[in-house]
Structure formats: C-alpha cells, structure tokens
C-alpha cells in the first residue's frame, strides 16, 4: 500500500503508446479491463457448484482526436500491417502503473459530424499474451505495476 492513500483524477494520469505521450493522440478517455474467467463444475447433492479461477484476458479502449499520421494514424498502420503496439501508463504516481508490449489493435472507428463536432476516433485493443501478465507492488515506491514481459 502507498504510504499515504491518495485520490487521483484523470489529470494525474499518463498514457504512452509506442513511445508517444497522450498529447500526441489527444486522448479524451482510456479504459483498461482485466478479466479472469471461471471454470465451473455443477454438483449434484450440493447447494452450489464448484468454481475455480479460469483464463485471464486483458483488453482496453481509448478515444483520440488527433487523426493524423503522427497521432492515431500510427496505430492504424500497425493494425493494418498486423503488428503489435506497446501501451503503458499510470493512473497516478502512487497508483496503478502498467506496461504492455503485446497489444493488438482490434478495431478503429472514426466518425465525422458537423462543424460543432470534434472529429475523433476510437481504438479497441487486446493483449496477445495475457498469460505473461505479472503484477508487483512496490511498497517502497508506493505503486502497483502490471506488465506482460519478463
């Protein structure tokens, strides 16, 4: 646990994608989901089933407004070419840090509206190697880190 429990807002967050910070992409929202399935064995004669932890998966999404070659275009290029991207960041200095190298862009969508609408694009991504994800809590530094490489 951090030395002092701290509340953070989006202002404290940082996102780095392929070495470029959030300002390169004009990110307006970012989400990261870590899921763990369940394996369930139904049981006769019991009031409930037997359940174990199942496979792990990690995916996420972001929205960015810079639809340029040095913005979201870098991610679209990797998607079309079938190459992975790296996504790292933190929700705050003493909060969650993550560094994933095996991200695949699964979906890119942009919408164009009127002169009152900012043109932005949405990206969905998933981790190709979720089984490599590890976590560690740095008590001395006060943060928890997730990563998908040795």
């Amino acid at each position: 646990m951090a030395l002092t429990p701290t509340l953070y807002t989006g202002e404290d967050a940082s996102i780095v994608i392929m070495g470029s910070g959030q300002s390169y992409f004009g990110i307006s929202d970012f989400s990261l989901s870590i899921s763990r399935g369940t394996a369930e064995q139904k049981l006769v004669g019991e009031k409930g089933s037997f359940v174990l932890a199942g496979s792990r998966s990690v995916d996420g999404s972001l929205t960015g407004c810079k639809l340029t070659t040095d913005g979201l275009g870098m991610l679209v290029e990797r998607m079309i070419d079938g190459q992975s991207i790296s996504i790292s960041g933190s929700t705050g200095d003493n909060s969650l840090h993550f560094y994933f190298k095996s991200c695949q862009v699964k979906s890119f969508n942009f919408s164009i509206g009127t002169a009152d609408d900012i043109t932005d694009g949405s990206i969905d991504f998933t981790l190709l190697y979720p089984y490599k994800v590890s976590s560690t809590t740095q008590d001395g530094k006060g943060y928890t880190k997730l990563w998908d490489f040795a």
Partner: protein
Amino acid sequence: MAGTVTGQDANVWIAAHAAGTAVTDYTDKDHATFGISDFSLTIDRGSIEEDLIGMPGNYFDQGKLSLNGSLTECKFGASGNADLLNSIIDGTGDYQYVTISGQISDAAGKTYLKWYLVSCQITKYDVTIGDADTVTEASIDFIVLDPQNVDYTTGLISDAVHS
C-alpha cells in the same frame, strides 16, 4: 490544439463505377451533393485464439481484417446523387462497385488520415420519413469487398491495388 479538427474540415466523395475501372470525374460526387450529415468508417482486426494447457491464459494472434462504415444523406435519388441507390438496386455494369474516399482535413501543418476505398458494396439503404419538422434522410451501410488489399501509406487507407 494542433491536429484537432471538426466535421467542417472533412471531405467525402462517393461514386459508383464498373469493375476494373477507376473513377476519374468526381463532379457531383462530393458530400455537398449527397447532403451527408454524418459519416463513419470502422476497421476491425479479428483475433485468433488457441487454447493452451498448463498456462493461465490462451495464445492470441492477429486475425483477419475487415472494413465497413455508414453515412446519412438527405439529398438522394434525382434530388442529389443516385449512385448509392443505383448500386444497391442494380449492382452491375457501371454500378457494380462504389468508391468511397475522403479525408479528415486538408489543413496545412499536419497529415490527416485519408481513405480511398474502391471495392465498396452498399449493404443497406434505409429511408426514414417523418412529419413536416423532420428532414427525410437515408441511412446507408457499406462494406469493403476486398479488405485483403487494404494497406496504409503515409496516412492513406486504401484498397486500390498499387502497381
């Protein structure tokens, strides 16, 4: 904020054409002629998954590519441009394919994303009629028939086979 633009900066061109031909005349093929009020393009890349024994998760890799999109127009048929209607109804000859191209912005200083998709097929054409306060619009869905040809070059997403 540099690189941020609105829908005012975008351009869209739509034109039906025969197989093996390229559209050279875009007269009356722009967003203003169709009266486009919104446009979206989605690129999907599937995942393949291999179950793994002895591991806490499965193996994933890149899957197939697919592209589709949608738009809404208020000037259709003879009152604007009928290429989309002709293509979904006829679908042969000069209306076999639809080229849909455009750009996020052509403002100087940045290279914005552009798309040039020559193998589009209209998959849905939905006209909605309301009362006197409601503009009659048509919602169109399209799909790219040749996603295997799609590449990305300096901001251009294209399925035109380059020599």
